[in-house]
C-alpha cells in the first residue's frame, strides 16, 4: 500500500529508520528496503536525509537506489503482479502467459493500470522452476500458472 505523506513526515520517518539501522555494517540496503516497505517506494525526499546521516553524497545514495531493480522511484499500484520471464518459465509457455497478462490488464511490463490497481512487473526467476510458469502476487507465490489461474489472479488484484 502506498500512502502519500507530506514532505516533512517523510523526512521524519526516514530519520527514524536510518537511526534504527545505521549501526549495521553496510546499512544502506537494509535502510532502503525499510523505506520502501514503509512508503511503497523510495521518495526523493529521503535521499538527502540518508546521505547526511551516513556521510555520503546524495549522488552516491541516488546511484545505489537506481542500480537495483527493486527500488521504485514512484509508487506502484495497490497490487504488484510479477511474472517470471526466465528460461524455465519460457520452456512452459511463459512468454504466451505474459502476453495474456498484458492483454487482460491492458498494460505493458513496468506499467500500472489507470485505476491504480495493478502494477505488472517482470521477474527473472522466483526459484519455482520445477513448477513453471510461476508468478508472485503481493509476495504470494503461484506455480504452474495456466490461463484460468492467471485470470483469477488478475481478478483478485483488480478487486
Amino acid at each position, binding site marked *: 500500500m502506498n500512502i502519500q505523506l507530506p514532505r516533512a513526515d517523510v523526512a521524519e520517518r526516514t530519520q527514524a529508520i536510518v537511526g534504527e539501522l545505521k549501526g549495521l555494517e553496510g546499512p544502506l540496503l537494509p535502510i532502503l528496503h525499510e523505506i520502501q516497505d514503509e512508503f511503497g517506494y523510495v521518495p526523493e525526499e529521503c535521499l538527502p536525509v540518508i546521505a547526511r546521516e551516513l556521510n555520503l553524497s546524495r549522488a552516491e545514495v541516488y546511484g545505489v537506489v537506481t542500480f537495483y531493480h*527493486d527500488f521504485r522511484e514512484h509508487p506502484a499500484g495497490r497490487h504488484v503482479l510479477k511474472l517470471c520471464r526466465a528460461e524455465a518459465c519460457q520452456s512452459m509457455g511463459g512468454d504466451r502467459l505474459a502476453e495474456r497478462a498484458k492483454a487482460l490488464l491492458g498494460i505493458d511490463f513496468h506499467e500500472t493500470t489507470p485505476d491504480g490497481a495493478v502494477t505488472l512487473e517482470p521477474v527473472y526467476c*522466483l526459484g519455482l522452476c520445477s513448477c513453471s510458469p510461476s508468478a508472485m502476487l503481493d509476495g504470494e507465490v503461484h*506455480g504452474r500458472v495456466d490461463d484460468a489461474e492467471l485470470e483469477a489472479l488478475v481478478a483478485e488484484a483488480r478487486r
Partner: protein
Amino acid sequence: MTVKIYIPRDAAALALGAEKVATAMAEELVARGHNAMIIRNGSRGMHWLEPLVEVETAEGRVAYGPVKARDVPSLIDAGLLSGGAHPLCLGKTEEIPFLKNQTRLTFARCGVTDPVSLDDYRAHGGLRGLEKAVAMQPAVIVAEVTESGLRGRGGAGFPTGIKWKTVLEAQGAQKYIVCNADEGDSGTFADRMIMEGDPFVLIEGMAIAGIATGATKGYVYTRSEYPHAIAVMSEAIEIARAAGVLGPSVLGSGHAFDMEVRTGAGAYVCGEETSLLNSLEGKRGIVRAKPPLPAHKGLFDCPTVINNVISLASVPVILDKGAGFYRDFGMGRSRGTIPIQIAGNVKHGGLYETAFGLTLGELVDEIAGGTASGRAVKAVQVGGPLGAYFPRSLFATPFDYEAFAAKDGLIGHAGIVVFDETADMLKQARFAMEFCAVESCGKCTPCRIGSIRGVEVADKIAAGIEPQKNRELLADLCNTMKFGSLCALGGFTPYPVMSAMTHFPEDFSPAPAVEAAE
C-alpha cells in the same frame, strides 16, 4: 499418541497450494476431534507431487500427493492418519523411486525434519560436524575440507579447502564468512530449498567455516525474490543464537561466531562474488577487478570466505563422517554429491541429489521422465542463463565439471532446464543477450555494449538480413565478450548463444527477408 502429519512450507509447495491444504487439514482435524499435529517441513524435492502430505506410521512415513484442499476430507475418511489407502497414496515416502535412488548427503534432512526445530535437527544427526570442529585445530579442519575434494557449488568449482586456507593464513583483525545465497539462475532452487527446509545445516556449515578460518561474523546474502527463505533463515538464526550454537562462545568452545541475513534488491549480477561484496557494503553492485582476491581483501577489505549455500551446507557432513566418506562419491576431480535441479518442460521436476557422474541423458529421459508436454526434447540448458544448450547428441556427457567444460558447457549451480521441440533457439540466444544487457553492472564494455549489439545482431538474423555475415559477427562478438569481460556475466553469456548457434544451425537460417534481396 499424537499422529504427526507433514505438510511442506517450501515455496514450491506453497505455490501449488500447500497453505490451503494445511488450513483445511487443521480445520478438519479439529472438527473430527482427531489427536494429530501438523508439522510444516521443507520439501522432499519431488515437486510434481507437491503439495506432498506425509503421515508418520509405525512402518515409516506414508506419502499422499499431489493433494488439493478439497481432497482433505476424503483423505481422512480413507484413514490418512494410519496411512490408509487412497487414490492419492504414494506408499512409503522413502520407497518412491525418485527419492530412493538418490544419495542425500547435503539434503539428508530436507523435507524430513521441522526446519525450525533445533531438537529435530540434532535428532537427525545435526551439529555433529560442528561438535567435532570445535575440538579441532583450524588448520586440521581446513585440511579435512580440502581432503574431501569439495568444490564450489555456486558454479566456479574452485576447491573450497584452498579458499579457506588462504583466509586462514591471511592477516586481519576481522575476517568474514559470506554465504552467497543470491541464487538467480533460472532452473535452480537448491539454495532456496536448504534455507527453507534445513536452515540449521547452513548455519552449522558457516560456523565451522568461521572456526576454521578465524572469522567471527557471517552474512547470508540472499534474494528479495525469496521471502520465505529469508523468514525461515532469520528465525533459525535466532533459535541457534538462543541455544548457544551462535554467539560469543559457539557450543561453549570459546570461539565467537554470529551471523545475519541480508537481502539483495533484484540485481542478478550480485550473484557474482565481488559485486555481492559491494552490495553488502551498501554500494552499487558493481563487479570488482581481481586481484585482490576476496580471500585477501573481501568484505570491507577484510579477508573473506565467500562460498555458495550448497558448498557450506555440505561441510557438516564432511566433518561428521570424514573427508574420505565424502570423497568416495563422484568421478574424476568432481567429488561427493551434487544436488541437481530438474526444471522447465519435464514430467518429474524437482531436486535430485546424487554422486557426480550420471549422464545428461539419464537425467532427462529417465529421472525427469521426459517432457511435460509429451513432445520430443530439443535442448537442455545446463547451468542457468549463462550455461550452454545441449542437444540430444551430447546426452552421453556425464555430470562432472571437466566433462561439461570439454563440451563447451558448464554445470554451474547444477540446474537443468529442458525445452521441447517447439523451442526456437535463435530466440533463446537473443534472450541470453537481452538478459545480459538488462543485468549488466556496466563496468566493462564487452558486457555492457556487447550484449546490446548481440540483441541487434540476433534480430537481423531473425529478419533474414545478411544472415551469413551476421552469424559470423555474432560469433566474433561472443569471442570478444568471452575473453574481454570482467566477470562471468559478460564472459559466459556466449555459452548459451554459441551453443544454440552451433548445435541448432537450422534455427539461425530463417527464410531470407524481402528487404535483404535488394
